[in-house]
């Protein structure tokens, strides 16, 4: 192919730094390339930087969270224990007792952040989030069904609580997602219609949940309400593994499919004209997002606002045009672990983490209101 003369600076194997604004080493200002072997992509320093900062913060906050407890452990010791050093007692406490909870928080938060970013990108709406489109509500409805109807007259315990409820939640979330897609499909899935159907499904699921709370006896209702506020309290390795596996499978899938997101942002017509299979892409991306949200809800109950808030905050931080996927995952993890830390330390009695994220979410909503005419489309 001709025209190679306009490729300055080097051939393959030469990752180049950004050179915009200074007479640029990049042929296209603002889009420096990074090319390694057959792989090529755009070098976005701000995005990479912010994501790395986020990772560091997650590690730090997680270490603080792990360090707290009846037997306080300093951050340094925690980090040492995590990599296999430190003394045996501390290693035991950190790895066996406390790590599962924090790790669940990290993974659940990452899943939620990513789910929110995907849903907002696919529907092109900054207010879209699986929490609001029926997935979380569906998960809640089925989980509460199990709690309310299982376990006799006492609260659901044992196997039912640790296995049955999360499984029910997962199935409920996936069922809700399927219903939303099924009802929204009419010669293709249009973003707006999907959102509205999601709102309707959400309303039904919330209604069912409220009713179940009435039908159950008070113990079951109390347990259900606790579950409904989203808590990491009962998290152990049994929670870490499913979320970990889900993330391990779905994150690469999302990143692969994310290739089409760039075109999808330009509207269905333009995306189609650019050769993207619009419906297929949207359905796939949406389903990945909803599955992530369902898994997160199954493991820790509905933790609200992470999926809604984090992608938009990341979008502004990184100054991109659409919610950045990996960054949202990282900062979703950060928000959840930080909220967990606050939930454990703010009051003498431990609060469910879902309440903290709800409380943190309010100023964000207010902030959005105060900026209302500045245009917040993605």
């Amino acid at each position, binding site marked *: 192919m001709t025209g190679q003369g306009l490729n300055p600076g080097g051939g393959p194997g030469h990752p180049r730094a950004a050179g915009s604004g200074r007479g640029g080493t990049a042929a296209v200002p603002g889009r420096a390339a990074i090319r390694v072997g057959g792989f090529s992509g755009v070098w976005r320093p701000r995005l990479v930087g912010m994501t790395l900062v986020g990772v560091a913060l997650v590690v730090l906050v997680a270490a603080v969270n792990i360090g707290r407890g009846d037997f306080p452990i300093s951050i340094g010791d925690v980090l040492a224990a995590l990599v296999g050093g430190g003394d045996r007692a501390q290693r035991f406490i950190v790895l066996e007792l406390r790590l599962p909870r924090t790790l669940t928080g990290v993974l659940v938060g990452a899943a939620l952040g990513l789910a929110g970013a995907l849903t907002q990108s696919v529907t092109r*709406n900054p207010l879209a989030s699986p929490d*609001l489109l029926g997935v979380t509500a569906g998960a809640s409805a089925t989980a509460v069904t199990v709690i309310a109807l299982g376990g006799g007259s006492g609260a659901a315990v044992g196997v039912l609580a640790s296995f049955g409820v999360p499984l029910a939640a997962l199935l409920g979330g996936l069922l809700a997602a399927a219903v939303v897609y099924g009802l929204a499909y009419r010669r293709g899935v249009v973003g707006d219609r999907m959102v*509205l159907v999601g*709102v*309707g499904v959400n*309303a039904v699921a919330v209604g069912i949940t*409220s009713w179940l709370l009435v039908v159950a006896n008070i113990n079951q209702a109390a347990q259900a309400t606790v579950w409904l506020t989203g808590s990491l309290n009962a998290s152990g390795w049994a929670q870490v593994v499913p979320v970990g596996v889900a993330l391990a499978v779905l994150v690469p899938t999302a990143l692969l499919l994310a290739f089409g997101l760039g075109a999808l942002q330009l509207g269905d017509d333009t995306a189609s004209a650019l050769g993207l299979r619009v419906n297929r892409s949207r359905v796939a991306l949406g389903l990945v997002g909803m599955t992530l949200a369902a898994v997160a809800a199954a493991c820790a109950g509905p933790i609200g606002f992470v999926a809604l808030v984090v992608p938009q905050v990341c979008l502004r931080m990184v100054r991109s045009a659409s919610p950045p996927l990996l960054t949202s995952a990282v900062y979703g993890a950060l928000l959840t672990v930080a909220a967990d830390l606050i939930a454990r330390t703010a009051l003498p009695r431990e609060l469910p983490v*879902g309440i903290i994220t*709800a409380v943190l979410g309010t100023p964000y909503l207010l902030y959005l209101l105060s900026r209302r005419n500045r245009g917040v489309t993605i």
Partner: protein
Amino acid sequence: MTTATTGSSYPPTRRRRRPWPLGRPRPTGVGAQRSRRIGFLVALLVLLALAVLASIAVGAKPIPLGSVWDALWSPTPTEDNLVVRTLRLPRTVLGIQVGIALGVAGALMQGHTRNPLAEPGLLGVSAGSAFFVVLGIFAFGVTSLYGYVWFSFAGAFVASVAVFLLGSLGRGGPTPVTLALAGVAVSYLLRGLTSAVVLSDTATLDAYRFWDVGSLAGRDVAIAGQITPFLLVGLLLAAINGPGLNLLALGEDVARGLGQNVTLTRWTGLVAITLLTGAAVAACGPIAFVGLVVAHLARFYTGPDYRWLLPAAGLAGAVLLLVADVVGRVVARPGELPVGIVLAFIGAPFFVALVRRRTMVRL
């Protein structure tokens, strides 16, 4: 090539009314429309009467229609009479009141937001009321309806304003989608906060969960009387707001150009919605979908004229609520399905069908 149009023409001509059947007959468009509207209202009144009868007669203990009449007027305290007077009648009256309130509030919201999906339940206004009521009762210990109804109003007001502002993000003001999402987001937040307050002890949770589902059952008999003054003021304001809404439907700029005081109209509507929703929620807990369904059905017959639409939506709301309540009593014998649940099962499919049928454009 014909250019006949009904309605407006340019330059505007005055439509002179000639007495019918003398002179030229009235243009059929307007006359037929008016009789259709009147016919619809009459039909609604008939349906309402039937619904009232059903509401009184049907239940865990079915009461034959003959004794219903007896029970209403004769003072003998038979078991049937007691059931009718102390349980069914107040419940029916409450149902009518709440139904009218929610129907009118829904139509008002749709008019002000020009959004076919607007209604107090979906847009989080009811959730706002509920949260503030919970705060009032459980955090401040207010126990009488006259006390916590003010919390309910505050909550409805705050939530309405929040939803409208939130929904106006992005270019071009709130689209139906953004507004619906804003409502769900606000509801979600409020429900979370409400749960937080309620979790503090078991007794409050126990009381709250029955109230939250939205039900006409188990309400204090006096409540129907207590909310009446607020409802009347709200309905009066709504009636005043009707003509203004007709102009606002053309867009704020056009309305201003026609001499409308837009701010005043908006505030009147906001206060009316607050009073109506606040009273309804204070009495029966948050109930969704009534406003959505009846406003659409009514609009089909009355057209977009709010002077007709508001009363029609009110009556249809009363009918719908009573019917849902009766269904709830019948379907789950000997128990009862709360009216909020029945409406969710009726309203949500209606909502989805509505969304599928056409693109959501501004009203």
